[in-house]
């Protein structure tokens, strides 16, 4: 550790300085995410207030620490039992915050959607909310409302011929033929860590290569029933596909 090489009298100042910096940068990071709207990429809006309060608290704590160092009240503290030295712990926190400040977080991509089991039918541990309200008109249902409607009443034929107007991003599942893509959205209930993808296959008139993976689209069309991979399922027969900008907040809740 660096502290070993410094004269002893500076050690407490180094440790205190480093922890102050770590707290300060975490405070700045949280407030910055809130201010720039990036917080929506990371957590559910229900927790914005809580997280912002935490950020402000960290800033206040850092100021108090600065005041304490300024007043030279600092004395060497007793030793902690920890996996790493206190200086190391502060360093780790500081480094993580600096990475967060330096690299802008991006929404999850189609690769993550596949990694998180967009195609799996075996996701046995994921519970879904039991209560939902859905728009009465099929064409005003969102992608998530379609999926939840299907969860409650899974017979695909029941929706045949209904109009569809949904948006999401493009995923190329390997299991589907060339003229299909899956229009996908992520759903979160707490934070990005529990994001899971939902999607519906879209049947195109041409190859899917026209629409790049991860591109955001509004898809209009009507529902048809097809057998894909030996499973009869609901498919969107697209009549109109329009590129749209990536929304500020890409998640459903």
């Amino acid at each position, binding site marked *: 550790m660096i502290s070993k090489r410094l004269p002893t009298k500076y050690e407490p100042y180094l440790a205190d300085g480093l922890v102050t910096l770590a707290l300060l940068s975490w405070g700045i990071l949280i407030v910055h995410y809130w201010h720039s709207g990036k917080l929506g990429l990371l957590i559910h809006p229900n927790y914005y207030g809580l*997280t912002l309060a935490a950020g402000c608290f960290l800033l206040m704590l850092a100021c108090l620490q600065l005041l304490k160092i300024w007043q030279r009240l600092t004395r060497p503290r007793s030793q902690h039992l920890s*996996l790493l030295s206190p200086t190391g712990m502060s360093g780790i926190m500081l480094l993580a915050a600096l990475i967060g400040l330096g690299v802008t977080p*991006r929404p999850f991509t189609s690769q993550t959607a596949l990694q998180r089991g967009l195609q799996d039918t075996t996701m046995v541990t994921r519970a879904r*909310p039991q209560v939902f309200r859905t728009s009465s008109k099929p064409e005003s249902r969102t992608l998530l409302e379609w999926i939840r409607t299907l969860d409650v009443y899974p017979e695909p034929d029941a929706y045949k011929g209904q109009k569809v107007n949904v948006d999401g991003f493009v995923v190329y599942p390997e299991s589907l033929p060339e003229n299909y893509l899956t229009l996908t959205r992520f759903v979160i209930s707490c934070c990005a860590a529990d994001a899971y993808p939902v999607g519906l296959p879209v049947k195109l008139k041409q190859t899917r290569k026209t629409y790049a993976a991860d591109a955001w689209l509004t898809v209009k069309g009507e529902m048809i029933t097809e057998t894909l991979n030996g499973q009869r399922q609901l498919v969107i027969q697209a009549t109109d596909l329009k590129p749209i900008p990536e929304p500020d907040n890409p998640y459903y809740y």
Partner: protein
Amino acid sequence: MAQFGSGLTLFLSLMVEAMPFLIFGVLVSGILLLFVNERRLIALFPKHPLLGALAGSLFGFLFPVCECGNVPVARRLLIQGASAPVAIGFLLAAPTINPVVIWATWTAFPDQPEIVILRIVFSLAIATLVGWVFSSQSDLKPFLQPSIAALIPTAPVAKISESTQTSSLLQSGTFFLDQPGKPIPLDPAHLDTVLAMSTPNRKSVWDRLPLLLDNTVQELREMGGVLVLGSLLATLLQVAVPRNIILAIGQGPVSSVLAMVGLGGIISICSTVDAFFALSFASTFTSGALLAFLVFGPMFDLKSLGLLLMVFKTRAVLYIFALVCQLTVLFTLVTNLWFS
């Protein structure tokens, strides 16, 4: 590159979501340790071993400390005359059975209330049972490190050298550690000095605030560091390990539980925020496995092992480990095999 991007988003979301709960846990436990007199509370504990163990397990509601703060508090309870079932029950349950942790778990699993409820039920049951088992040992001293055993009140009052320490006792997760073998004076006057902060009228509120600041910063540093490492590991496991391997382990009713008990024991993430860590495995692991992580981790992990060994002899720590581990695996396997 896309993997790095989603890994970073995952990592930052875990950190940002967990941070308020970490701060809350640190603040509340700091305030209680500095402002509440627990000696008066000890007198209220029931004498019956089972009830005592249960009461001790529920004591965490008043002292919401995570697994690094509970060992020093349990040790202090023992020294101040709490019975073995009370102290062991507290030791095992306090990191889980407290409002902050329950709130955080609820936040992480709003769609799966069974995780929250079973976490509480299992932790309470295990802590109470193990506390009860330890009541069969009427004299706990053979299980304790000699320096602690000497301080238990029932012992003939020993002559002990003058007090050398005052304030390091007051920092949760810190005190006692930097002075192995230095006994704390049993003389009530000295004990009072040592425990000045738990006697509300000794120091004014304003005198204690700097101590609260020190305590908060130290704990945030330590637990924040572990949180960063834990979130990093969770992210790496998600992003770097192929999904079919994770699913193969995570969907097996037995393999998933064993994997998560192992992970809970190694990762040492603070119980205030471990629910968010578990959350990142919610789509790939069985509910029983998530519960195993949430129940076992706070009771026994690498971080608390070092602390436990400063209070208990190796033999006692092994007993606690074996009992807790087996009960956790039993309960969570039953959950996996019969209820899900």
